[in-house]
């Protein structure tokens, strides 16, 4: 079996189009990194200039008392704004040096941020936030009640996060734009590209014998129809490797270029990671690196499930083109199913427990606030449910394949 798996892997690796896809995916991600103004200029400059300030502020945030002592007096008391301090200095003929000005500016920004943080924390009511989501999506009846069921769990986790001081820990990576850029856009792009390549190679390997008219010969050999198991394993290996490769090269480039070691141990939920109604708070107090690892894990699970789904569908059709189109269509259809369900039915909420919702919402994985999917165990339940469904489809596909008379087909 191992030899056959090796041969199947070689089949994929000998295809130029596989490398072309991989390179196009990398170029696309590279273009995103290069083209993202916020990530490229602001964050990098911010980190380079203010790294000591970030460390300083992280320490300050833990002890408010200490903060009070070190922040500049008139600014802290709100007696004067930074512009007024600067203007006063100019009037006196003292030109404040740029570096000093920058330090003052940073200090004030951090101070304002700190105050805003506490104000936000004091003002936030979990049940009100849930009601806001209910209103935003126009949910009524059972659908709204299903969402409201999660309020106690949300309140509990929310208070725990506060007790653990995670939300007060400042880290620039948690700023909404950067979170959205890395875990939203880049991670989603990596996952979508990997899913696409996974579908293509799995469909190709599974349909290979039929398309090359060697099915009758291969299936009557000693290995027989179990060759499809080898193909499944090969697809799994190549798809996972492709995902890991894309993940390491793309996310790794981002981390190498735009983050610093002090950031890796910062909490993703810190500084509330908030912009407008969007609030990114993780269910667990994940640090940046832990969250990246979790993203990798969930992404890999999705890839494994997509391999199984494509393999099962290819066992029915045995045509790469049709199987590819069918899997893509299924993923899209799963995504649009909620549009047909009444906004008062709890089915609407359960219809979002699909692979497609997971693939699209990378930035919201294990986050508290994410539209319909407020369930604390949304990701695990979705993966489990998908695994069961795909398992059943694969079982029937395998049974159908084993009983197929290839003489008639050929």
């Amino acid at each position, binding site marked *: 079996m191992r030899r056959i798996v090796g041969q199947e892997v070689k089949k994929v690796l000998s295809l130029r*189009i596989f490398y072309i896809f991989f390179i196009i995916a990398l170029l696309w991600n590279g273009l995103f990194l290069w083209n993202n103004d916020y990530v490229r200029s602001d964050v990098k400059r911010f980190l380079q200039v203010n790294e000591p300030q970030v460390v300083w502020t992280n320490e300050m945030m833990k002890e408010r008392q200490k903060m009070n002592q070190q922040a500049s007096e008139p600014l802290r008391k709100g007696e004067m704004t930074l512009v007024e301090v600067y203007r006063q200095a100019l009037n006196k003929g003292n030109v404040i040096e740029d570096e000093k000005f920058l330090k003052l500016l940073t200090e004030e920004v951090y101070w304002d941020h700190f105050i805003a943080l506490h104000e936000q924390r004091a003002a936030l009511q979990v049940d009100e936030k849930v009601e806001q989501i209910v209103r935003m999506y126009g949910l009524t009846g059972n659908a709204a009640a299903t969402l409201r069921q999660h309020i106690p769990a949300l309140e509990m986790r929310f208070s725990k996060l506060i007790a653990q001081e995670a939300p007060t820990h400042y880290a620039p990576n948690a700023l909404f734009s950067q979170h959205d850029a890395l875990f939203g856009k880049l991670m989603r792009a990596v996952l979508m590209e990997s899913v696409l390549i996974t579908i*293509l190679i799995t469909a190709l390997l599974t*349909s290979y014998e039929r398309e090359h008219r060697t099915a009758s010969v291969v299936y009557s050999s000693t290995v027989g129809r179990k060759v499809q198991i080898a193909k499944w394993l090969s697809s799994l290996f190549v798809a996972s490797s492709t995902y890991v490769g894309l993940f390491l090269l793309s996310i790794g480039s981002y981390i190498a270029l735009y983050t610093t070691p002090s950031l890796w141990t910062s909490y993703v939920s810190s500084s509330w990671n908030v912009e407008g109604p969007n609030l990114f708070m993780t269910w667990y107090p994940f640090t940046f690196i832990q969250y990246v690892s979790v993203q990798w894990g969930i992404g890999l699970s999705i890839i494994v499930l997509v391999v199984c789904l494509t393999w099962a569908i290819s066992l029915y059709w045995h045509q790469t*083109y049709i199987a590819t189109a069918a899997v893509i269509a299924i993923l899209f259809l799963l995504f649009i199913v909620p549009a047909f369900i009444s906004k008062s039915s709890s089915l609407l909420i359960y219809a979002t427990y699909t692979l497609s919702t997971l693939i699209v919402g990378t930035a919201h994985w294990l986050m508290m606030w994410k539209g319909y999917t407020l369930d604390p165990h949304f990701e695990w339940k979705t993966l489990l449910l998908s695994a069961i469904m795909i398992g059943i489809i694969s079982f029937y596909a395998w049974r159908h394949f084993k009983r197929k008379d290839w003489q008639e087909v050929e």
Partner: protein
Amino acid sequence: MKIFWNECKKYRSLPLLLFVLSAHFITYMLLTDYDIRMMNQGKSTASSIIVHRELVDTYGPSMTKEDWEDVKRITALYQTKLDAYVQNDVELRQLGVNTFEEWQQLIWEENERGERASALHDDWIFESNESEDFWLWQEYDRLLSFYEGNETYIEQNRHGPGHRDAASPDYYEQLYEQSTIVAQPERIFLIVRNLTTSAVLIVVLVTLLITAPVHYQDRMQRMIPLQYSTTYGRRLPFVKWLASMTVSGILTFIMIVVYAYLMERNGHLYFVDVPIRELISGEIWFDWTIGEWLWMTVVVLFFFTFVSTIVGMWIGTYAKNALQLAGGVILAVIACAAILLPLSITRLFSAWYPPFYTWVQLGSIGLFAIILLGAIVYCEKKKDVVPFE
């Protein structure tokens, strides 16, 4: 002719039919459903459409300065109705509010009184069914403020290109002349332009999806050497393309008819006589109406059907394996969505870009397609049948 029909028959397959139906269904739900149904959704949009319809009904597709004076009068009338509502409301009276304007100002105050006023305001406009007058007033007031503000805006720009580098002073001169005689169709044009963009992607997707596998099939079944050895011989590639073009053209035509029906049913076609070029958003180079824009869309859709059949034929003819076939189609669709739509289709004849921008783009795409078709036909003529086997 018999060969042409035989080639057309290749498209008569269940998987292809399912592809077409699924692709249309998915793209309708993801791309166009919102723009089709938007006309009747939400209090803000619905009231906006009601006002636009009233303007068209009362003043026709064009409006004079006198008409706008009339609109001012209607707006004032709605304002009076809103004031009356405020004066009859007990809670608002308790807050010391006497006019609607006072209420609007109070909701921004950051104190207990302001918060209460804001809560009452939100409840009234979003939850109550009696707030229709507010939405209509808001739309009239918005149009009026645009009308009044835009005269100044145009005046500022008529002597220079302003922030839109591509637009010349002449353009603004012309716009200024028209500015007083046009109803405001910006919301309708926005919807129609979105539909144009989505329709191009759907046509490209569907055409590629069905064209490429049919051309690939002949090659995989090793029929090409046999076909090229017949008396019809090397003229076949062109006939194959003609068949693809005919079938895809029919599918595009059906799609246009279905969408026209949906647009008619949802009220989009009510505004076909309204000129696009006005002061808020309709900055295009030609003095077209919404109806003329829709006809232009039809032409563009057939143009992209023509281009896509050639690209699909190219992918299907030269793909060495199924992965190249499926991958080629996917890449072409992604290229269309990521490059063609944002850089070309969303900017069709836009005054934000030079007048030749769209012509050069569409011309280049058309030329590329013709050269590609010529190259395929030429290469197939030169191809030796023996190495096939």
